[in-house]
């Protein structure tokens, strides 16, 4: 039974494409999500394992943070010329992120941690009868990262940290084939593959003053090589010899991400985060699918993607109303990596704007409950038929909301205070540098 439940859970992990640039899933911690998904320079708890391993050693307590989301997307397509509007079948998705951090004694400068999270994913189901059925009917891309992490701080001021990432990825694509079965339905091709990959996540956190923190982290690109994928075809009997079910190999690159953040605390209860993510989508250039058995009609597939690197700009903050209650808010602008001419029903991407809200309730030193809410609005993205790589013209537009909840369990005795009580460094140098 437990196994069945797990399988069901894994099936729902993919995040609908509407939620982030490309197929990135910007839902890695409920506290951060409440603040516009910022926190590169604001170490709060074990979630720093994802956001900035450098900040992990500056967090107070040993912590277990379990974050779960519900995503409710809506995506529409209006075909050029006909004006026909199609809705993507928008089922809910449930990405998650779990982190655990630990050190042996309170005042040791190091911390170890383990993160398990879903950094990239996309799940789209347009159905089998829509206008783009020969381009794509459904796709699902899932990745899960397992990241053991070590972080060390120098005098509570500079934290450095790095984690090794083992990723598992799976991808499935389906489209109709323009051959008509005796029933009048289209034929179908379904491709799928699974693979593992390796990478790292490293970061530096610098506590410049009591009021100002900066952080930088870098998550490497990861190459997934699926060697034993499979291609399955539903075609009329007469065409079976031309469409043999066969093994396929394919490769998928997930991009590197350079995260930079500043956190400013004008007073001890208020934190304001400004983050910039620069995502190296350029690695997602082509999807190449190599069929082990080619036939006269079945050549290897090269799908041009031609993504460009893209920025996301995020602003968010938190305010501690009292020691048991914190509220959060934020906003972000997610600039999409897809060039004109390459907008596909698989990643019908557009620049997106989001507002977020969040809160934390502390029942004790040992337990915190976080909640978050995101409202995300994409601009309409029109793609001209004449210029589209698959000659599928039309306008895509997406919108979505997410709800998130996290349970945080803190271990160990009362730790270092949230902010270091070391005296502030002088704001001006005492001796000017010799000319």
């Amino acid at each position, binding site marked *: 039974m437990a196994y069945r439940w797990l399988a069901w859970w894994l099936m729902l992990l993919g995040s609908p494409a509407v939620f982030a640039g490309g197929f990135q899933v910007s839902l890695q911690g409920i506290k951060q999500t409440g603040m516009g998904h910022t926190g590169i320079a604001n170490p709060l708890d074990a979630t720093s394992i994802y956001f900035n391993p450098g900040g992990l050693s500056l967090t107070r307590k040993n912590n277990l943070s379990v974050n779960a989301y519900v995503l409710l997307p809506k995506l529409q397509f*209006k075909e050029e010329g006909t004006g026909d509007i199609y809705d993507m079948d928008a089922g809910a998705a449930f990405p998650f992120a779990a982190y655990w951090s630990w050190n042996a004694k309170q005042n040791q400068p190091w911390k170890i941690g383990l993160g398990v999270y879903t950094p990239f994913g996309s799940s789209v189901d347009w159905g089998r009868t829509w206008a783009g059925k020969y381009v794509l009917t459904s796709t699902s891309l899932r990745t899960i990262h397992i990241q053991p992490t070590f972080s060390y701080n120098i005098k509570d001021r500079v934290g450095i940290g790095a984690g090794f990432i083992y990723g598992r990825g799976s991808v499935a694509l389906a489209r109709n084939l323009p051959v008509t079965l005796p029933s009048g339905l289209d034929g179908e091709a379904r491709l799928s593959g699974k693979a593992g990959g390796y990478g790292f996540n490293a970061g530096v956190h610098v506590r410049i003053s009591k009021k100002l923190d900066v952080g930088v982290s870098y998550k490497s690109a990861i190459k997934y090589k699926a060697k034993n994928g499979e291609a399955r075809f539903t075609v009329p009997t007469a065409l079976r010899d031309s469409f043999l079910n066969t093994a396929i190999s394919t490769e998928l690159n997930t991009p590197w991400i350079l995260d930079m953040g500043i956190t400013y605390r004008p007073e001890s209860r208020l934190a304001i985060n400004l983050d910039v993510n620069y995502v190296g989508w350029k690695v997602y250039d082509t999807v190449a699918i190599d069929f082990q058995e080619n036939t006269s009609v079945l050549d290897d597939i090269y799908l041009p993607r031609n993504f460009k690197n893209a920025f996301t700009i995020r602003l968010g903050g938190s305010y501690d109303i009292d020691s048991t209650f914190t509220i959060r808010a934020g906003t972000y602008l997610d600039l999409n990596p897809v060039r004109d001419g390459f907008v596909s029903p698989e990643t019908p991407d557009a620049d997106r704007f989001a507002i977020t809200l969040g809160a934390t309730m502390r029942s004790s030193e040992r337990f915190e409950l976080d909640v978050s809410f995101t409202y995300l609005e994409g601009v309409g993205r029109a793609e001209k038929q004449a210029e589209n790589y698959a000659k599928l013209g039309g306008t895509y537009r997406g919108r979505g909301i997410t709800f998130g909840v996290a349970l945080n369990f803190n271990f160990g005795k009362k730790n270092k205070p949230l902010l270091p009580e070391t005296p502030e460094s002088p704001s001006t140098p005492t001796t000017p540098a010799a000319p």
Partner: protein
Amino acid sequence: MKYWYAIALLVLAGCGKDLLDTDPINRGVLPLTPYVAIGGSETAGFADGALHFEAQQYSYPALIAQQLQLVGGNSFTQPLTADTGGFAFINGILLAKFDLGNKEDCLGETSVIPVRREVTNGTFASSFYASKGGPYGNMGIPFLKVADIDNVNLSASNRYYFRTGLDSISVAEAVLAQSPRLFTIWLGMEDLLAQAISQVPAPAAIQYYNYLLPLVDSLAQDTAAAGFVATLPDVTAFPFFNTIPYNALELDQPLADALNQAYVGQGISFQPGPNAFIIADANAPGGKRQIKATEKLLLTLPLDSVKCLFLGSLTPISAQYVLDEAELAEIRSQVLGYNVIIRELAEEKGLSVVDINALYAKLETGLQINGQEFNNELVSGGFFSLDGLNPSQRGAALIANEFIAVMNAEYRATIPTVSVVQLPGIRFP
């Protein structure tokens, strides 16, 4: 946790309105009704070698009328057949439509090719007569040549016209009796095809002009009417003339040797592998020669005779199955000439030109629509029906969209086009 989901659904219901506005649709200054389409087989919805219900239902005029209804047009009448295998009269023989089917050849090999459905008398009788003699918005008459537009006795020679019940009036009269405010004309295809398939000479360009002029002139009398006239494609590019390769004569070493002996001293030699067929040519030495790579074989070539009775090798293929270089050049120059006339007539009478020729020309390199490629191949090319001459339903949609694009451009209309890939495809067995 369940509450979250409930709240989520509530919020989503609040923001769950449509994201995309529907496109504004408007007829602009285009008069919509009555709409009459004038043409030949393609216009009538003759496809898969027969006039049949499904092709009529999705004939390009029916698709245009369907889109016009979205902006206020009236319903459209066609002389529909019953939903059976349809019918055709080829050389006086009654036939039903082609389906893709399994057929065993003389060597016992089965392959999937267009096969005629069985004709049963009962289904034929029920589908032959169209009701009441019109009026029909679709005045496409299969095999209608330009010379017959004014023929009041057309019923006697054209059984498709006979079945419409339009007795002793000409096509032109039946059209004009409806006082069309919107009309589309695509005429000349049947003349070009008759020349290419049956060596019946098509009228010269100037005659073509003279045949068309009276009808166009009368239609254009109504200055408030909108007229559209389509250009003609190079019919020699159709799959009917391009499916059997000139060099499909596959020989092994002993056969090649045997043929070389048979043709010794005639300047013809054979190699193992693909060879050019032998065709009859009165001007060639001995009355036969090898077909050139630029020449074409018709789809009606009896392939069983090729495979089992040495047609195209020992016996030359007779001229009725061949388009030689001279014939091809003549047909192509006819197409050019007709198209000049079409543009001239349009200019003279204030009609809009719909460049269907340009659409067909795109098929030569392949035309991608929503991930499907349309080209000149039979079956896999998607554009042509199983007869290799007339458009499939998706082909008809592409043609309808060309008309609609011109209507939109010239009459400030925003009529939605037809979603091509949503029409029925060519069914496999």
